[in-house]
């Protein structure tokens, strides 16, 4: 811990899913806000343990699906009944029955794009993040379970947080320092 490096947070490793679920509840109760649980797969019950709210993604996708349907039907209406009217097999210009498949497809297309890119946006992913400065974080995508508390947190204090992790039973703890 040299002094001229900026401390960005603390990361602690826990033994298994049961331990980390337990520890997450304690971190939540201690009142931390800028923290996260890193695991190789989603741990059941972690949202409750962390006190997380439901993801708003469902509403975003519902809105996108509605937009897709409106755009799909509107496009076909405008192209077939407004911009260049063509009589084809004597059918109505606006044959909404026949326009259903394309309308549906565009609703789906807008939804899937929103589901994926909305998820990526909500995740606030970035290539440089304090947790990547850890020496053992690579194992979080393999078989290790971590809790990180970032320095932005109001309750964060390097020594006290380090001590806190030891008290709640981590197997390993380290400071996250900018390299």
């Amino acid at each position: 811990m040299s002094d001229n490096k900026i401390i960005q947070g603390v990361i602690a490793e826990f033994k298994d899913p049961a331990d980390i679920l337990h520890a997450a509840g304690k971190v939540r109760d201690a009142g931390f806000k800028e923290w996260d649980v890193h695991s190789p797969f989603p741990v059941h019950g972690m949202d409750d343990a962390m006190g997380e709210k439901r993801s708003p993604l469902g509403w975003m996708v519902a809105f996108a699906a509605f937009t897709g349907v409106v755009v799909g039907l509107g496009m076909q209406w405008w192209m077939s009944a407004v911009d260049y009217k063509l009589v084809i097999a004597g059918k109505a210009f606006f044959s909404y029955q026949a326009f259903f498949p394309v309308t549906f497809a565009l609703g789906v297309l807008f939804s899937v794009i929103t589901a994926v890119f909305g998820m990526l946006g909500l995740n606030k992913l970035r290539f440089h993040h304090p947790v990547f400065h850890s020496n053992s974080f690579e194992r979080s995508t393999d078989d290790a379970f971590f809790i990180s508390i970032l320095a932005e947190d109001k309750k964060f204090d390097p020594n006290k947080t380090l001590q806190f992790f030891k008290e709640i039973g981590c197997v390993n703890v380290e400071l996250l320092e900018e390299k």
Partner: protein
Amino acid sequence: MSVTAENTGLVIEDIPLVKGDPDFHKITTDICRISEKPITKTPRWWWIAFIISGMLAMNLLIMIGYLAWEGVGVWGVNIPVGWGWAIVNFVFWVGIGHAGTLISAILFLFRQKWRTSINRFAEAMTICAVICAGVFPGIHVGRIWVAYFMFPVPNQMSIWPNFRSPLLWDIFAVGTYFTASALFWYTGMIPDLATYRDRAKSKIKKVVFGILSLGWRGGNRQWKHYEVAYLLLAGISTPLVLSVHSVVSTDFATSIVPGWHTTIFPPYFVAGAIFSGFAMVMTLAILARKVLPALQNYITIDTLERMAKIMMVTGMMVGYAYSTEFFIAWYSGNMYERFAFINRAFGPYWWAYWTMVSCNVIIPQLFWIRKLRRTIPVLFALSIFTNIGMWFERFVIVMSLHADYLPSSWDYYKPTWVDAWTFIGSFGLFLTLFLLFIRFLPVMAMSEVKGVLPRANPHFHHNMPPAHKGEA
């Protein structure tokens, strides 16, 4: 979407999903080792397969070039059979893709945990198959350079495409299907790509997988959105996969050709698509187990048996559709419809019809016997029969064209060598893409397999006091 131990317990799993009770690290190493081999240590079977399929894929390009240069006369199409192998191959490849989406979406919604070991490469298979399918509508328009007429783009005549045409529905359905499948596949792969990033030794791999994994850090604040996104994708893809092949079937069903103009087509096509797709997943899974022995603990004989059962069910649905078509042809009292079906079974294409019935209806009945469902060479042989049978099904349907209302215009369709090499070439393209996938990307969804292991459950530990059970 909070999943508690209580509601995951609803699925009764008496058969272990993975053999040998591996821990999380073993799953990582088993799967990562497959693609972490340096280029110089690429196994010989891979190079042989890659070179052969690569050559066949090149051959597809040559055939397309020849077609574009000479015109559709190089194909066997004639009047009345204006749709030849191109449409047969299109339906064949789109159909194969459907199993991947079924495994990733529908089985996910039904909480079928055994899907986790096969979903990744079934999804990859979907993407490769849909790419192959996409080639055919593009080239069967004849004048390839005006294929953009199929899209709603303002062209020099400022005319818009006809949205009442099922061929245009196809463009939107298959285009959406490809986009959705590719995004679903990629979303599922992000955590595994992060594993690759974290294990990478070389700078190049670190950067490439670092970019591909988008800075994934496995935080629960990400998993939360990720799981919802995955559920939504599964929920959206389920009606999508059912609609895509329904739309494909309307290419036929909205026409007035006897044998095509039936309402049974959409469900019949969807069942057939799943049937053929599972056969292809089976073929590829058995080959993958052979050349990558590490997969044998994950794609267990139980997984294969479950797939065989799905094939049996969908095979019988297809068989039922064949008999319903015949019954309705008779019951309708329509002479053209009756003739079309009698002609299918006993006319000049009788051999195609009976190949189809044997491969799709009769041979899969062997799956009733448990011992055969669990014998790998038998499964492999039966999956090949299904692949053949389902190609013939589409051929039989398309050949309804050869004898329609006016006997003076009847004709016999024969494919040319260009047709044949185009079809073989599409297999080359399919296998080339698939081989690249199994060489460089995670062939199995590691994070998902880890997540369904008993030890992934926070309540798994034996030494935990029983009072702990209800918590969380």
